[in-house]
């Protein structure tokens, strides 16, 4: 059995002002995968391509062995999408939206739906138009989750949710993947949440996958390094790949260090002094990596 739920290879989508890719993306089966990146990096475009919203210019997308074009129907039965643009207002009330959507999906789980209504504090008689933004987000999640899809794709699922609601959502997502067969792909800016809940992370910037892998390995790989150059010496220029200077103040330096690169050996050869390494949160790391790009390295 293929260990991956989603495999994207060499995906390219060209717009007049923006090109996504070529991008590879691999989501292991049973994982919660967090797709992160600055605004406009191409996250939503990538998710749209999976569901055939717009035609890709090159590359292959496979979801549970289904090709996203040739096996489109099978893919759409097994994968669900929830995003900020979904609008359920035409159904008037929550219960009507639920009845409408459930009719399309044989795998719909009524008991689970009722449980989610309770957890997300939604009532069948609630008017969708008067729901808060957060409650509408929860409705969108509910309609996707209650289908019990094998693959769940969520675009910004926690936007507008308060801290308690966010926990409820992630708790449900952890339950959804508990059997190791169900998979969740989330695009989000909630890096603190993803660091805690996501097994895998992919960082997209300017349409390219910058790094992808296990969240813990990515976070462990980088350190914030602070060090001093010896008196009278300056830091050799350019710094090697894997060392991004964030700040230099006289002989005192601060840099992002990739511990898997040649940079640690290079620092030693430079005879830097008082080297301290500090763990970064995923959010700190994200900011440093995006900054690296802006400075043109």
């Amino acid at each position, binding site marked *: 059995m293929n260990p991956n739920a989603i495999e994207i290879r060499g995906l390219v989508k060209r717009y007049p002002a923006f090109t996504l890719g070529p991008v590879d993306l691999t989501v292991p089966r049973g*994982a*919660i995968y967090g797709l992160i990146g600055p605004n406009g990096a191409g996250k939503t475009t990538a998710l749209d391509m999976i569901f055939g919203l717009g035609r890709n210019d090159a590359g292959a997308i496979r979801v549970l062995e289904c090709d996203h074009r040739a096996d489109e129907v099978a893919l759409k039965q097994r994968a669900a999408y929830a995003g900020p643009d979904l609008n359920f207002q035409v159904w008037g009330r929550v219960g009507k939206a639920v009845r409408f959507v459930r009719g399309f999906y044989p795998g719909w789980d009524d008991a689970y739906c009722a449980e989610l209504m309770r957890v997300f504090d939604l009532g069948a008689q609630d008017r969708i138009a008067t729901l808060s933004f957060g409650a509408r987000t929860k409705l969108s999640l509910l309609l996707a989750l209650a289908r019990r899809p094998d693959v769940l794709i969520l675009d910004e699922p926690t936007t507008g949710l308060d801290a308690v609601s966010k926990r409820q959502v992630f708790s449900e997502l*952890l339950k959804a993947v508990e*059997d*190791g067969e169900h998979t969740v792909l989330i695009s989000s800016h909630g890096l603190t949440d993803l660091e*805690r*809940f*996501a097994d895998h992370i992919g960082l997209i910037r300017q349409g390219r996958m910058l790094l992808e892998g*296990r969240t813990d390995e990515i*976070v462990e790989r980088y350190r914030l390094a602070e060090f001093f150059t010896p008196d009278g010496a300056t830091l050799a220029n350019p710094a090697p790949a894997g060392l991004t200077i964030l700040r230099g103040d006289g002989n005192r330096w601060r840099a992002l260090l990739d511990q898997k690169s040649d940079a640690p050996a290079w620092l030693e050869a430079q005879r830097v002094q008082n080297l301290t390494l500090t763990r970064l949160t995923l959010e700190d790391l994200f900011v440093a990596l995006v900054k690296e790009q802006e400075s043109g390295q």
Partner: protein
Amino acid sequence: MTPAPKPVVIGPISPAAGGALYQQIVDRIKREIAEGRLAPGAALPSFRQFAEELLVSVITVKRAYEELERDGIIFRRQGLGTFVAERGHDRSRAAKLAAAKELLRDGFREATEAGLPPHELLDLARDILKEKK
């Protein structure tokens, strides 16, 4: 039907506490074992169940279990689950002592750097022990 195993409760896991989340899980489980609340042979939840309960990613729990297994504190039986090892108690205690030694070393270094001579350092240690009581 066999009765459901008693749920395993460990100390809280939080990004606000020190260290990586998986390391916190390792430490909390060691503490449960060292203090006898988890006996040899006791079953641990599957890592997916535990992830759901602790609200952390599956990989985080998996990594914690792998580390505990490597240290011989827990063991896995294919298809049956994960259990506290016979010698888990001794090894957890040994691990806690090693950690304590490391912390004392750090503490003594800080005190020495602050200019505290060795005999006053021992006085300080005694004071701290008294506080605890």
